């Protein structure tokens, strides 16, 4: 195979794996502390919207000119904050109101779809949005001359940040007191209580982190990806990220590998389409979902969730 094709595939894989990695980290922070977060999808969507709107409005108001990236970074910050806020709402509802965690998560997902579509029409009066002049530029580009000109892999800031956050999650979770506390909260909350530590506080903080990571994944989609927001643009990535987390056995480093695997499946799908393979587009688009199902079936028995997951403290 032509090396340029492989490099193109690699580039697509990294681009598609990044939101899945951030989403799976979001799941790890929540579930390791004992909270099922099925609302990653909604937090991602809301983050994508908030990031886009803040960046676009700042640019429109002339606070920043289009040359710099200041507006984009403030957008990223907004996405993280909105995600965290939703994470705290989920924590409040499940811990204070003792709501079933799946029900609360589903409500937040429906809320995210409604709020983003409603606000999109409120702000722009249309179902889609205009493209930002620029997205976050690559830090590093590695390019090779192919048959049809240069082909390259771009390493963009949030992509690199996602890997750094993955390593950081690993270190915090397995090498720090907070990580131990998180694990106790998810495995055996009474241990924490007997030490005089608060299970609730642990879960609130972890849900804020979880939401923030999901919001960051959303910001990646709009501010580093396509530069615009479309209704329902996450199209199940938040749920696939949960499958990535399970595939990675609730651990950050294996989740990184799992995210790459799922990203590769998604990249293959796009690639086969561009190569003009005689398969209907819809069939290829089903691939990531089918892979998720296979992963859920194949690994469920061997991959063990935190013991106190989903239980009311």
């Amino acid at each position, binding site marked *: 195979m032509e090396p340029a094709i492989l490099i193109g595939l690699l580039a697509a894989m990294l681009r598609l794996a990044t939101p899945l990695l951030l989403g799976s980290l979001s*799941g790890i922070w929540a*579930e390791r502390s004992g909270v*099922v977060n*099925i609302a990653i999808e909604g937090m991602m969507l809301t983050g994508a919207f908030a990031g886009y709107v803040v960046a676009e409005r700042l640019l429109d108001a002339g606070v920043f000119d289009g040359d710099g990236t200041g507006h984009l970074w403030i957008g990223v910050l907004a996405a993280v904050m909105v995600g965290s806020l939703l994470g705290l709402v989920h924590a409040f*509802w499940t811990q204070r*109101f*003792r*709501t*079933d*965690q*799946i*029900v*609360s998560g*589903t*409500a*937040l997902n*429906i*809320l995210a*779809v*409604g*709020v983003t*579509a*409603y606000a999109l*029409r*409120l702000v722009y009066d249309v179902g889609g949005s205009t493209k930002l002049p620029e997205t976050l530029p690559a830090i590093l580009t590695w390019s090779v001359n192919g048959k049809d000109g240069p082909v390259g892999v771009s390493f963009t800031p949030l992509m690199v940040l996602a890997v750094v956050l993955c390593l950081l999650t690993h270190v915090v979770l397995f090498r720090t007191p907070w990580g131990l506390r998180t694990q106790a909260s998810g495995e055996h909350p009474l241990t924490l209580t007997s030490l005089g530590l608060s299970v609730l506080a642990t879960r609130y903080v972890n849900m804020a982190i979880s939401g923030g990571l999901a919001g960051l994944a959303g910001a990646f989609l709009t501010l580093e990806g396509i530069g615009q927001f479309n209704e329902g643009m996450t*199209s*199940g990535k938040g*749920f696939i990220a*949960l*499958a990535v*987390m*399970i595939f990675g056995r609730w651990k950050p480093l294996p989740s990184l590998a799992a995210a790459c695997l799922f990203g590769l499946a998604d990249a293959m799908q796009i690639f086969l389409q561009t190569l003009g393979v005689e398969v*209907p587009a*819809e*069939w290829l*688009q*089903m691939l990531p*979902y*089918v892979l*998720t*199902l296979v992963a*859920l*079936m*194949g690994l*469920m*028995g061997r991959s*063990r*969730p935190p*013991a*106190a*997951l*989903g*239980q*009311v403290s």
Partner: protein
Amino acid sequence: MNAFRNLAWSLAAVLAALLTGGVVLAVSGYDVADALGALLKGALGSPNAVAETLVNMTPLLLAALAVALGLRAGLFNIGVEGQFLMGGLGAVVAGYALPGLPGGLHMLIVLAAGMASGAAWAAVPAWMKARFGAHEVITTIMFNYIAFRLVGWLVRVPLHGPGSIPQTRYIAEGAHLPVLLADTRLHAGFLLALAVAGGLWWLLWHTPWGMAIRSVGLNPEAAEYAGVRVVRTLVGSLALSGGLAGLAGAVQLAGVDHRLVEEGFSAGYGYDSIAVSLLGANHPFAIVPAALLFAALRSGAGLMQIEADVSSQIISVLQAFVILFVAAEAGLRRDREFKAARKAAAVAPPSPPAPPQDPNLPAAGATSGQGQEA
């Protein structure tokens, strides 16, 4: 008495949700009175508006009954949207591929085909749960996305009817559900949906299988101990839940659409039905007024968008608030009852109280914490 108190609390939760929606509208700079007026006029302002509300209520009620049946067994079927679509697919194929059948019989075959395809589509995730422990919430959502793509392709290519618009052929006239009220779209499916609500109530509370379903939903371990075949009950109830969702799609197709379009057939009925079922405390009779409320909101939202320029998406926001408030109320009540029971147990040790069970929600162990999360 207890049921009435629950109803009062549910109403309070709905009012809180509507109030929050009003605040959202006001903060967005809309004239709330204007918007509300348009909403009411669109939902109930004329005989035709009322008929349209009932037309909207029909698939919503059937789909919500599907969700309720699942939740009674402790299964959260979020795949209703996809099963609804597959039901429409089965119905449309049976509707045009079998010409020359007598009208009434053809109609029944169309509805049965829709129900069977919805059930088949739900049976796969049911099997995945029984065999591999894959949580139905994620698998049924994945099946939604697969159903959208599958039906999209089928309608675009192999089932593409005459003309350039991507849609299937129209079903035979004899397979249409008869119109109940002249000059409106209100069709016999409305009565069928009400009958199904009664049937589900009978199934759940007056048959051995219904007893098995509810006992598995409340406490799978205890049900197993009592001799209920848990896995078989779970698979069966998820398949029947999918069947009801498929029936909802078939009714919508045979009563309103009469052919399947590439996109927008289900129009979110499957997702809305989750809020309806939770609002109706997963009880078939309480779901009827809940479906009426949401159908009225849905048909009013169209006029509200035209007259007051408010995006009809505000309805999704309202629904999310309804779920959040109803579920929070249920959670707090369960907590109160649990604490009261513990206190009573401390005072009078000889008769330990039964563990608190909330009929509104599946037992905690059923949806989560069983070691089969996600």
